[in-house]
């Protein structure tokens, strides 16, 4: 693996009485695409949110470029997320009041890019994702799969250092899911984006370099030693 870019060490986190993470360790290399798999409720989304500085662990450490981000204040963490991270969330990600192209441009607008320039950056993504003609629709007027592709464009538009994606192909059929993965992997390779991808679909995980499996709030990394012929 290349230099570690993100690391979780002994991370625990409970929601009230429910322990979601119980000592999770994981390392993501720079430029690596890591698939996070595991049963429903095992802590995958929670781990992703911790790695991305959205949730703060109860104990343990989160490092980004060797720096403890779990110790940063909310303002610094939100600046880090805005400047370096892109997100595709598992549920309901689009802002309903905005058009599709405004949704895609949102990270740029929030980062201070002027409206015309931000929209100009956003538009080419529609053709790339097979969304031609849907630029002016509001999210309520998109199908689930279309909305998910808009969300992916939004995650990639600012060319983030790290893309955090939680079930980005969940609502897509095989062909569209493939298209989304090709795009994500293509962007990752071209731009050197590091990707942390939560998925329960083996065919989606197979686009990653490596997989980590979350079970009961802990991470198992599997590797192949020997295969009988």
């Amino acid at each position, binding site marked *: 693996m290349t230099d570690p870019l993100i690391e979780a060490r002994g991370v625990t986190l409970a929601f009230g009485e429910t322990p979601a993470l119980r000592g999770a360790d994981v390392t993501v290399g720079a430029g690596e695409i890591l698939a996070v798999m595991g049963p429903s409720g095992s802590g995958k989304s929670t781990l992703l949110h911790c790695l991305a500085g959205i949730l703060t662990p109860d104990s343990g450490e989160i490092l980004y470029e060797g720096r403890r981000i779990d110790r940063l204040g909310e303002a610094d963490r939100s600046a880090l997320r805005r400047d370096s991270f892109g997100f595709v969330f598992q549920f309901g990600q689009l802002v309903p009041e905005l058009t599709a192209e405004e949704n895609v441009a949102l990270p740029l607008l929030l980062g201070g890019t002027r409206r015309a320039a931000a929209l100009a950056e956003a538009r080419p993504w529609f053709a790339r994702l097979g969304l031609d003609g849907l630029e002016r629709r509001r999210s309520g007027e998109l199908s689930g799969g279309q909305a998910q592709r808009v969300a992916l464009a939004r995650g990639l538009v600012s060319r983030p250092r790290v893309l955090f994606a939680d079930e980005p192909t969940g609502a897509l059929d095989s062909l569209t899911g493939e298209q989304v993965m090709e795009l994500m992997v293509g962007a990752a390779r071209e731009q050197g984006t590091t990707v942390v991808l939560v998925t329960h679909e083996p065919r989606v995980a*197979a686009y990653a370099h490596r997989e980590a499996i979350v079970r009961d709030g802990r991470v198992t990394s599997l590797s192949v030693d020997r295969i009988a012929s």
Partner: protein
Amino acid sequence: MYGQLMSVPLTLLGLLEREPSHGYDLKRDYDSLFGRDKPLPYGQVYATLSRLARDGKVVAGEAEPGDGPERKRYVITEAGVTEFETWLAQPVAPEPTLQTVLFTKVVLALMLGRDAGQYLDAQRAAHMQRMRELTELRRTGALLDALLADHGLFRLEADLRWIDLTTARLDAIAEAVRP
């Protein structure tokens, strides 16, 4: 992994149904279409063709100038066409052979009180590794390669879903198989 699904004599009949061909043309076409993982040895091509000729499924033309059996042109017969068409329309037994081995290993491991979970993890890792290779192949290869890779990917994915489900139920299965 496609080897066992592929019937060499019937595939050669299919190629001959397209047009009469020499043995070396059949081998070339077979290898480029179906034999990616495992090219067909010349010996097997000619042995298969002689068996088909003996059974009246093909007839060999006159030997053309040059030496060896590869100078003969083979033509499919009416009986050959019928056999090929019957085979073509017949569904393949929907029994994933690999899963039988997985199943046997899991049941035996649990029966003998060994670590079935560890085996399933190792199998899972091997499956994912193969799926990554096939994914790379379908991303970089020609359309026919991609088509084959896809088939492999869907099958392996089915195994993986079974592996995950079984991993989640090991305790219950152990109860069921222990005396």
